[in-house]
């Protein structure tokens, strides 16, 4: 119950901003006479999906010797297809525009089916080595299946999985920005970095093109956000590369690209990507400060640099709001 909202509804009705019918409907909810438990049902469904996928994961791990890989792969595939069929039956027909979800469980059945398909393909590849030395291509296959499902069923969550699987195929990982080329992963870090930057540029371009072509234009924020994150993660991995002077080159790249992205995001009113670029420039600046000054002076500079980033963010917020 919200006493403030109840009082506000009465005032808004008196001022004729709300009609009687609107005030009655909103008032029931504000007084707590009617409560939606949709969020709780979604939470139950999500927890159910988590438990089911965990159970399947443990089942695969513990039983693949006993039951046999073919039987396991078929069983998981059947379960995945059943979930997909459930989602398909309860989803609206295909359209390039945003489609409102008609059933609370359709999204979760789709997510479960996609996770099962991904797990099954990985399991089959581990057991049967269909792709041989090119086994990593199974991630591309998984990614393509996810893309198809995301576009068919209008699911941003599955699109996120598709994009991360695609990046994973190219060897990109979450820990990459701070991995050193002197690590055990060694010389491959440079290749992964370029892959991350390539994926970032590809995702941003694809998102912009698909939005322009009005093909699921509402997916554009997912494409652009993932692209921006990958792009800056790739560049930051160069900035945080070990010794030598090459990190300075990446620092310059970060400065130029960060500036371009900030300007573009400011113009296009994209606060999320603006914040990502700011965060990347801030972190890149810390490396520069660490190299320049150590000790107490360095800490003071960190404080000044952080305060400058803070003031910049707040000033940008105000300007963006004013500009509308």
């Amino acid at each position, binding site marked *: 119950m919200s006493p*403030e909202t109840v009082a506000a509804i009465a005032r808004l009705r008196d001022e004729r901003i709300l009609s009687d019918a*609107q005030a009655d409907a*909103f008032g029931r*909810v*504000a007084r707590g006479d*009617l409560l*939606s*438990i949709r*969020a*709780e*049902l*979604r*939470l*139950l*469904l*999500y927890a*159910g*999906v*988590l*438990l*089911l996928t*965990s*159970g*399947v*994961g*443990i*089942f*695969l791990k513990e039983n693949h010797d006993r039951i046999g890989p073919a039987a396991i792969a078929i069983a998981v595939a059947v379960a995945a297809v059943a979930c997909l069929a459930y989602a398909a039956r309860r989803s609206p027909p295909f359209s390039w525009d945003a489609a409102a*979800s008609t059933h*609370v*469980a359709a*999204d*979760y059945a789709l997510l479960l089916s996609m996770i099962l398909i*991904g*797990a099954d393909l990985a399991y089959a590849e581990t057991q049967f*080595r269909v792709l041989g030395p090119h*086994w990593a*291509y199974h991630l591309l296959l998984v990614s393509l299946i996810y893309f198809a499902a995301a576009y068919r069923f209008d*699911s941003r*969550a599955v699109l*996120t999985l598709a994009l*991360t699987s695609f990046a994973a195929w*190219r*060897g*990109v*990982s979450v820990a990459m920005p701070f991995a050193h080329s002197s690590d055990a*992963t060694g010389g*491959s870090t440079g290749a992964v970095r370029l892959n991350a930057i390539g994926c970032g540029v590809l995702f941003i371009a694809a998102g912009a093109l698909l939005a322009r072509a009005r093909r699921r234009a509402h997916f554009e924020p997912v494409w652009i956000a993932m692209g921006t994150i990958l792009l800056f993660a790739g560049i930051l991995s160069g900035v945080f590369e070990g010794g030598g002077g090459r990190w300075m080159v990446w620092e310059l790249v970060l400065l130029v690209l960060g500036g371009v992205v900030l300007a573009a995001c400011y113009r296009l009113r994209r*606060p*999320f990507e603006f*914040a990502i670029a700011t965060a990347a420039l801030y972190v890149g600046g810390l490396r520069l400060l660490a190299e320049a000054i150590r000790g107490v002076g360095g*800490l003071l500079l*960190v*404080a000044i640099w*952080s305060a400058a980033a*803070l003031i910049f*963010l*707040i000033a940008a917020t*105000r300007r963006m*709001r004013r500009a509308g």
Partner: protein
Amino acid sequence: MRKAWADLSAIEEVRDAARGWKAAGGIDASALSAIEAAYPDPRIRLHGFWRVLIFVLVSAVVNALFFAMQPGSSAIFGASLIFGGLLVGATEALRGSRYSGTGLDAASSFWALTYLLVAAADLLFRQKALPDETAVTAMIAAVAVAGALAAWRWGFWIYMACAIAASFVWAGRFPGARPLWIALSVFGMWLAWRRRDARQLPPDHRRCLAAMFAICAAALYVAVNLYSVDHRVVEAIAADGPGLDSLVTVQQHAAGPFVRLLSGLATAVLPAVFLAWGIRARRTLLLAVGLAAAALSAVTLRYYVHVAPLWVILSACGAILVGAALAVERALRKRPGGEWRGLTAAPLYERERGISPLAALAAHAVGGTHVSTPEEQGRLETGGGEYGGGGATGRY
């Protein structure tokens, strides 16, 4: 809390509700504009990611300044006290400003409390103002008092949650802690429930009361849970208690059979009580507490009764949850008007959101199987792990 802050908190509540009405198509853009004009909020509203970023930046500024001062061990008390005091002043200024709610005030209040508590810890432990065990008890009390004052003054519910949790830990330091926990938690729930909709309280304080209720309910559950009784979880907090080792290395059945019987019954019944109460009172907080307690009771049951392998239990629980959610949704949808006892499965005036990308990634990480490289053939890993390709390897 100052009246101006309370008024802003009330305005925010109305504007949030209006945005929900608009998102659900209940009002049009012009009506939303009229409502926002009638309830003006001068504060800056930011995306959640911005607020996190601002919190991190403020944290960097504050801590870099503190450590740049290089307070020697003898000056930590004074330096922390001064820093804490300055940050309290900053929070006071920020809470009433247009920057309230941007992450600035949250960060300054958090570090204010942290530095004041560091000063207290320095006084108690380094300068040995009290004997060790007494100092621990006093420190816990300090956390509780500081959290409660911060919640009362600034209205952050998280501080109230910390304060109440610290209060229970403090109560756990004394003999007879378990009955004390039960009594305190019941009293705390009663107190919070009584004032839950008090018009005189600003929304921020009502959220603090909700946090207090949730922590008290959690404490009650911990006090009566069978695992907690067997492992003497509450008693482990006491200065002369069995220590934290008892959480894993049990003297199982330390309690008498009657106490264990009561505890087992309470473990089974309490979640149902919370759920029934939530349905009757139409409160999502109670439903959430009931669901969490039910999950913990299921884990407790699994600990004592091994009826099937873990994967069967997980899969069965998952299927039951999905089935129960679908059954409830279907039952509510089929009722006249789509509602039963004031409960509905329709989204009402909240924007219908899909699964968040982060939640999808988490589920994928939990359930995903990855391909082992040819060198590690025969070893199957689940739940994320190594992968490679394109001449690269990594982890996801």
